[in-house]
Each structure stands twice: as structure tokens, then as C-alpha cells.
């Protein structure tokens, strides 16, 4: 399927082409919105607004071959707006339905999925722009140049945020590892 030609059709007001693009990118775009916002319900609204904006601004697309990047830019900015509105800079306590016991030993007791849950909690506690860079790099496999284009930043800024985000995660993981080691009695 030639996405570029479908995008060109959409630019020329072809609604059927737009429907095809929505179907192609719906799941991936939704997941990005979810990872950034941390909330399923907000993600539905984010995606709806993002696709609407995508069609209404279709005449602004200069490079149809980079449509995906353009779409994710809209999704990212819309997700940021939603997070700002609901003040979800620190959504840590609201993410999960099950309760997380902070004093549990990270290495010894938690199974794989719970380890991931803890790590996700740490990622979600990062400032939103750092978190976005982490998500676009590690989930979407994007390079720093591409991320810069999507987030509207300089590449240097993206690199800094990636570095700072990774460091914060590492520091937090080490803290928890140290905490567990202290709590386990040596025999």
C-alpha cells in the first residue's frame, strides 16, 4: 500500500483516503497517546481531536512521505494539552487499578510484569517532555532528529531530555534496589 499516494488523495479532499489513513494509524497513535497521558479515556479524546485536526489541516502537509511524523506531532501536542488541562504531570498514583506496595522488594519478590509496572510508574513520574522523548525513542524507535521534528525542539534538547530521563530512571531503580537490599536480612 502506497501511503504517500493515499496522503496526497486526502490532501485533495478525498475522505475515503482519510478513512484509510485513520485505520492504518489508529492503534499506534492511540498507544502513543495512552503512554503519554496515562489514561485510556483521555486517549480516546486525544485521538479524536488529533485525527480531526489532521484532516482540517491537510493542506498544510508539505511532504506527504513524512505523514506519519506529522500525525504523531499532532498526537503529541494534543496529548500535552490534555495533560496540562488535567494537570497530569505527576499521574503516578492514578495510573493503576491495583495497589502497589512501595515497600516491596523490587528484585526479590516482584514477577516480571510487576517489575515492568514499577518501571512504568517511574517513567510516568518524569516531566511530560522527558517522558515523551523516552516514549518516542523506546516505543516508537525514533531517532533524536525525528523526535525533534515531532516535539518542535532542537535535536540537542531531545538528546538532553533523553539523557536526563534515562538517568532519572536509573537513579530511581538503583534507589529501590538499595532499599530492597537493606530490608533483606543477611543470614
Amino acid at each position, binding site marked *: 500500500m502506497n501511503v504517500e499516494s493515499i496522503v496526497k488523495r486526502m490532501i485533495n479532499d478525498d475522505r475515503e483516503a482519510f478513512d484509510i489513513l485513520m485505520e492504518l494509524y489508529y492503534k499506534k497513535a492511540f*498507544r502513543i497517546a*495512552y503512554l503519554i497521558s496515562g489514561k*485510556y479515556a483521555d486517549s480516546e479524546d486525544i485521538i479524536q481531536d488529533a485525527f480531526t485536526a489532521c484532516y482540517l489541516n491537510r493542506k498544510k502537509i508539505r511532504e506527504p512521505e513524512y505523514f506519519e511524523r506529522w500525525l504523531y506531532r499532532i498526537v503529541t501536542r494534543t496529548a500535552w494539552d490534555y495533560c496540562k488541562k488535567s494537570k497530569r504531570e505527576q499521574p503516578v498514583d492514578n495510573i493503576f487499578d491495583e495497589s502497589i506496595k512501595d515497600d516491596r522488594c523490587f528484585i526479590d519478590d516482584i514477577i516480571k510484569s510487576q517489575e515492568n509496572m514499577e518501571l*512504568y510508574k517511574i*517513567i510516568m513520574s518524569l516531566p511530560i517532555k522527558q517522558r515523551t522523548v523516552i516514549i518516542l525513542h*523506546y516505543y516508537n524507535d525514533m531517532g533524536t532528529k525525528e523526535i525533534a521534528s515531532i516535539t518542535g525542539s532542537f535535536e540537542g534538547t531531545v538528546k538532553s531530555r533523553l539523557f536526563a530521563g*534515562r538517568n532519572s530512571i*536509573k537513579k530511581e531503580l538503583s534507589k529501590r534496589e538499595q532499599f530492597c537490599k537493606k530490608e533483606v536480612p543477611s543470614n
Partner: protein
Amino acid sequence: MIKRGDIELKIKETLNERAENISLSNEDFEVMRRKVNYSINSFEEEKNMKKFSFKKIAVVVGAICILGSVTAIASGIIAGTEARTNIKDEIKDYEKVSKLEEKAGFGFDIIESFDNGYKFDYAVPVYSNNIDEDGNKTGYSWVDVSVNYKNEKYSDVSLTATKNLYEEGTIDENEDYKGTVINYSYNNYMFVPPTYELTAEEQALVDSGDLVVSYGTDEVEHKVVENVNWVDDNVQYMLTTFDNDMGKDILFDMAKEMIDAE
């Protein structure tokens, strides 16, 4: 000590697990698709309504204001009328114009072409309501029918059919034709953007009745507007034209052709 490579793998694994665990069905997609298309349609409908043939709508509004007050209503003092059309309602086939009778709620008679060369171009319903001094709708709304006629030699002529009968306002000339009185008016119109403020001179002209101001265009434009109107079978008909060189006699002749055809 946690190695960088380990961290990166863990981050990737965590985000993938979190994202891929979200279940998104075809039904979820269809719901979203419908909502998106609905939003787009609503936005575009709003855009079409504001832009379509604003000047002609304004003249209908202006003609209403010139012709006088409408039936008083309970909720406020009537300060004016606003009217709008939607390009999607446009009917290009003369044979299908009768469909507008249902939308308008009344029957009307129009002709396809005049002896002077004016031919049917399109017809649309015009949605109107009164507004008070604060620009709020006052609860009284109605639907008129507007038909555009084209001529190779002269400016377009717009015919409006309305059930909303108005008291007579400024009339420059009239003629009794087979028992039907045809009124003619000639006005200087100024079309202005919504936030335009009149100068003292312009306000004086408005106050003296020498200028009619209509709000809502992108730029300021001056037009001479001529109008003939008559009532037949409780429907008021108005033929309106802008900056037309043809002269008022031709407008009178067109009115007579319509009266003869009814």
C-alpha cells in the same frame, strides 16, 4: 549496578508491554471514525454557512429592515435580523426547486427564465431569525427561499420568497399592476466586517436613511442595491440586484412577468 544496556532494554520492554496490552477492537475504531467524521462535517458546515453569498443574504436582511418591523415577539426588542444559507442546500436543477416548499413550509411560484435573458441559476433555503440589541436570537425564526438568476449582460438578480410579511418601509416608487402593487426601493449599502465601527459621517447617513449598513463581510464594500417587491397569495416576493446598470424598469418588467405567470 544497573547497566545502561539493561535499563534501555527494560524501558523498551515496559513500554511495549503497557501499550500492547491495550485492547483496541474494530468497534472502537468505528466509534472513533464516526466521531471524527462528525466533527469534521460540523466544522465544515459552520464554515459554509458563514461564507456563502453573504452579501445577498445581507440584502435580504437589509430589505427586511428597510421594509419595516416584523411581528413583535415576547422576549425582547427586535434590533435586526440575521440570515444564513448553506451551500450544501443549493439546488441547481429548476425541476427540483419545489422540494424547498417543504423546508420553507409554504408554496411559492417562480419561473425558469425571463424575456430579458435572466435564467435560473440555483435556489437555496434561507434560515433567518430575529436578534435583539445584544445580538441574541429572540426565538422567532423562519425559512425563506432565495433564487439566483444570471444574465450575460447584467449583474445577477436574486429573488426571495417569504411568508414573513413585513410592513411597508422606504419606498421610492410603486406601480399597480393588475391589482398587485409593486414597490421599488433604491439604497446605498455598506457591507462591513463584524467589528467595524462607523464614522460620525456614516452614522449620520444611517440615521437619515441614506445609508444601510450590513455586518459580516471581510472587507468594507459599497454597493447600490435595488429592490422590487410585491405580495401574492400571502407570499412576499422580492427581486434584488447590486450595482446593476439595467435600470429599474427592467426590474419592474421582471416582477410583472412573475405576476403574470402565477
